[in-house]
Structures are given as structure tokens and as C-alpha cells.
């Protein structure tokens, strides 16, 4: 019942956005709304704002006029699946690194003080500044015939964004148990590992889940940016660039990979939500 309501409202919301888009396009001036020199609202030309139905219709037309061309949605879907795979690897790597850092910082206070500010600072370094370095170093790794594939560079760059919320959230979570619980374990003469396993990690779950969700969104964003940045061919990132290049003559096409990227992010967030549902025993304190 509540779920149906949410679905209906959500759908209404999306319809509302489409309505706003078309409504503004219908009444707004071609050159956008200007206040003095400032363009506060965008242009309404078909080039700048294609009709919603054009965007949707374009999805079902073939990508190009080549005889065997697949429909656009199919191409975007395939590319999105590839990107999702890479993002998943990036998310897993980032999550592992984040968790390890969090455990380290929780166990050694000096490590927390020394590392945390740098972890925060690390996120102000624009990805694109080191994407080439990662690809370059990766391309030189070759272990016993196994060559570093280019998608792995993308995943590594994505993990750089994904690790951050996990490290911070997990640290907060690991530090969250009530003193009464940690002291209880102390009275049991429990080892640090036992305390971690029985108290700290379970207690961290409510903090971890939003962090994992943020991490998943970051991994997707990182994957797309890194694909563009390193010129990876098979993901949505590449389609974004290519189709943006064709946007002058085919404006609606450029929106397809944008929808793909958003869908990707929503799938990732949905996956984490599923994870959360599986762990609901550990979230009993949370207000629903």
C-alpha cells in the first residue's frame, strides 16, 4: 500500500519534471530568460531543449542509418551494463580500501588524526588530473602473461571516489558503539578482533549503508568520468562523448546516454538498498 503510493507519487514526480520541461519550452523565450545580462533560465530551442517525446522516440530508432544498426536504447543498455560491471569492481575496491582505512583509524587514534584530514583533502583533487597517470602505470603492469586491462584503470579511478564515503562513514560507525558495549566486551577480556566482529562492525551497519549508497553513486560517477577521461570504448562514458558530438544534427540522441547514466546510478543505489533490506536486523535502532 505504502509502496504503491510511493511508486505512484514517484511517477507523478517524473511526469511533473517532464511537464515542467515542456511547459517552460512552450512559454519560455528562445533565448532563455535573461535578467540584465544574466541568463537565469535556459534557452528553449530544439537544439538546447529537445522535446521529451523526441528524446523518448529517438531511443527506439536505430543508432545510425547503417543497415544492421541496433535501436539506440539497445546500444545504450549494452554500454550501461559494461559500465555497471566496471563500477561494481570500482565500488568493491573502494569499499574494501575504505573499510581497511576505517578499521586502521579506529584502532590507532594517531592514524585517524594523521590520515583523516588528507582523506578529506584527497577528494578535492580533480579525477581528471590523474586519470592519465593511472592508465599509464596500469599499462605497464604485466604479471606472468596477465596484462592490466584498460577497464581496470577505469575501475581504479572510480574506486578513488568510492572509497571516501565508506572510509568516513565506516569510521563513524566503528566509533559509534555505546561505551557500555565496548566495556562489556572488555569485561569479557575479549580480543580487539572479537570486539570488532561482535560489536563494532554490527553497530556500524546503520552508518555503513548510507556510506555504501553514496559510494555506489560515486563509483558510477567515477566510472563515467574515467571512461571519458581515458577513452575507454565500451561504456556509457564513450557514448556520452560521441553522441554529444552529434548533438548539433541529432540533439535528442545526446540524451540517451544521460538516461543510461542515471539509470546506472539508480540501479547501483537500488542494489545497496537491497543490501540494507537484508541487513535490517542490524538497523533496529533506526527510525523507519
Amino acid at each position: 500500500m505504502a509502496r504503491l503510493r510511493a511508486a505512484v507519487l514517484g511517477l507523478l514526480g517524473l511526469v511533473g519534471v517532464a511537464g515542467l520541461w515542456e511547459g517552460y519550452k512552450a512559454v519560455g523565450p528562445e533565448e532563455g530568460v535573461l535578467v540584465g545580462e544574466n541568463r537565469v533560465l535556459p534557452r528553449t530551442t530544439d537544439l538546447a531543449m529537445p522535446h521529451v517525446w523526441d528524446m523518448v522516440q529517438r531511443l527506439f530508432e536505430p543508432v545510425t542509418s547503417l543497415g544492421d544498426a541496433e535501436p539506440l536504447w539497445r546500444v545504450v543498455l549494452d554500454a550501461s551494463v559494461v559500465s555497471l560491471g566496471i563500477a561494481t569492481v570500482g565500488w568493491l575496491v573502494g569499499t574494501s580500501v575504505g573499510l581497511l582505512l576505517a578499521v586502521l583509524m579506529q584502532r590507532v587514534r594517531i592514524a585517524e588524526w594523521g590520515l583523516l584530514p588528507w582523506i578529506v583533502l584527497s577528494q578535492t583533487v580533480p579525477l581528471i588530473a590523474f586519470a592519465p597517470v593511472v592508465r599509464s602505470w596500469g599499462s605497464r603492469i604485466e604479471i606472468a602473461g596477465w596484462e592490466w586491462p584498460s577497464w581496470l584503470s577505469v575501475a581504479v579511478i572510480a574506486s578513488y571516489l568510492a572509497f571516501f564515503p565508506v572510509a568516513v562513514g565506516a569510521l563513524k560507525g566503528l566509533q559509534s558503539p555505546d561505551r557500555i558495549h565496548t566495556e562489556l566486551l572488555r569485561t569479557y577480556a575479549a580480543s580487539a578482533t572479537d570486539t570488532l566482529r561482535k560489536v563494532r562492525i554490527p553497530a556500524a551497519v546503520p552508518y555503513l549503508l548510507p556510506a555504501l549508497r553514496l559510494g555506489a553513486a560515486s563509483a558510477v560517477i567515477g566510472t563515467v568520468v574515467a571512461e571519458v577521461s581515458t577513452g575507454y570504448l565500451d561504456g556509457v562514458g564513450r557514448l556520452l562523448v560521441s553522441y554529444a558530438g552529434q548533438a548539433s544534427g541529432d540533439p535528442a540522441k545526446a540524451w540517451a546516454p544521460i538516461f543510461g547514466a542515471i539509470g546506472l546510478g539508480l540501479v547501483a543505489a537500488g542494489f545497496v538498498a537491497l543490501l540494507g533490506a537484508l541487513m535490517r536486523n542490524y538497523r533496529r535502532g533506526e527510525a523507519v
Partner: protein
Amino acid sequence: ACSGGDDGGDGDLTEVKLQLQWLPQAQFAGYYAAVEQGFFEEEGLEVEIIPSGGDIVPQDALANGDVDYAIAWVPKVLGSIEQGANLTNIAQIFQRSGTLQVSWADSGIEEVSDFEGQRIGSWGFGNEWEIFAAMAAEGLDSTTVEIVTQDFNMNAFLQGDIDAAQAMTYNEYAQLLETPNPETGELYTPEDFNVIAYEDTEGAMLQDAIWADTDRLESDEEYEETTVAFLRAVIKGWAFARDNVEEAAQITLEAGSSWGPSHELWMANETNKLIWPAENGIGVMDPAAWDQTVAGALAAVNEQDQHLITEEPPASAYTTEYIEQAIDDLGDEVDTVGSDYQPIEVTLNEGGN
């Protein structure tokens, strides 16, 4: 990452990595054709073509040793060489600059000197130096215009955000001609635009060239041999693309270009125009063009008062040794000059499709 095993005659192929400067498209038709037609294999090479995206600088991938050869524009590499990269131009494939500055027919921007006070589009990424060099030759300094970074399409120009947009003959110019004019509903035609070709200006600079690692050329005989073999196959590839434009366009489409077929064919055709005819033979450097490029690079100053280069590049910056060797080796087998080359006529469809 380089040569795998000795290139013994028993079919053991030498692995070679070639770094492009952009995604797969007909701009690189010759290389893809060489792969597809088996020219590299005939030369005992197994070539992996590595496309690049926004932030991969091909000459750096080469300088770092990630790849064996790279395609890059001369002025950008001159900058890298001054920064310490040790690279040599082994084949100047494009003989001409393919860069245009496009404005509306009624804009009054007809030559570089008209840039003053205008919003001039450029992609950045080192593609702007030709503009500054041409302006320098007209006595304009870079602060007299407003440089606007163009993104991947021509919308900024079409919507009037830019007075004169940078365009490659083989790509962005075609994008304009694939766009319907909202007033007529028909596609734009060349008559709608003023076109300034940098090739006709003092600022003209050399573009797509094949670069190799200088130190390896000097010290590694095997690499030298590979280089010549590689160039032989490349020549065959470009000759194929010249003689079979439509097939070449098809090859790049299959190699992963995402352009529409008419756009791809246009690009293959225009790329051919930048290569052929090649008076001294394909890829052989014209010293005058080199000197002009160097002079332009020395003269260009960007709006932050930074120079691309401040001194002449070293003598090792280019050599014709290997390409001439390759042309010799091929002899009559291939037409390496293309003196009677004739481009085809390409009709662009809406959106390039």
C-alpha cells in the same frame, strides 16, 4: 610493453602498440585499414591500436613507454619535447592543416585580422596554438579576443555563443552541414558560412604525424627495423584508404566509430585530402612546413602570457630516414605520391546518419 620476442621468420609477430589521439574514426582510417587488410601482419607485426579520450596525451603515453608509436599534432609534441620528452617525428602523414575557423556568412569575419574583439572558439587541449600563431602573424595578441572553449559539438556556434568556431574540415565542419537550419528546415549549406582555413595563413601548423621514441631509435636496432616495417604497412593502409574510400569508412565504422555512415565517409574523404597528393611521398617532411610550424609555435602566446615553446626544437625532433626507407622498400608496389588523386563527392545526411 614493446616488442615481444625476436621477429624470427617463422610467423612470430612483433607486438606493437599505436596510440591514437582520439576515439576510433576515419581520421585514422589508414591505420585501421592496415590492420584490417593484414598489411601489418604481412610485415610481421601485430599492431594494437589504442584510442584515447579527453585526457590521454598520446605523446606522453609514448614518452612513458606505454606504447611504441603515437599519432599527435606537431605543435603539441613540440611543447612536450621542450618539457623533456625525447620524441622523434618519423612520418608527417598529414601534409596540410585541416583546421578551419567558421563564422556566419553575414558576420564579416573573413580573415584572421577580423578576430579582434570577437568570441573565438577553440577546444583547448593544445588545439588553440594555431589560432594564436595566426593572430600573432597579424599582430594581434591573444588578449584582443575572448577564447571560448568549445565542447564536442557545434551548438555553441549555432546558438550564437561563439562568433567564429574552430572546426576540422573532416569533422566539425561536417557537423554544421548535417544540421537542419531551423528557419528553412533544410540542412545548412557551405554558403551559410565564412570559412578561414589556417592552411592559408601564417599560423598553419602540421598536424597528425607518427612519433617514435628517440632514445630507442638511437639504441635499439630492432626498434628501427620494426619502425620501417610499421611505416611500410601504414603507407599501404593510407594508399588503400585513398583508393577505396568507401571501404575505408566502413572499416573504421566496424572498428568502433560511432559516427553516422555519411559523416564517416565525409571524414575519410577529407582526411585523404589532407594527405594526398604527397609530393615528396607520403609522410616525408616538408622542411618549409616544419619551419613554419616551429616559427608559429615560437610566436604563439596564450591569454595567460604562456608560451608553447621558447626555443628551437632539437634536430632529433624529426627525421625522414625511416619513411624514406619504407617508401624505397615499397618501390612500385604502392603509389606513395598519389599525384592524380581525386577526392569523391560526399552527401551528408541529417545528423550524419
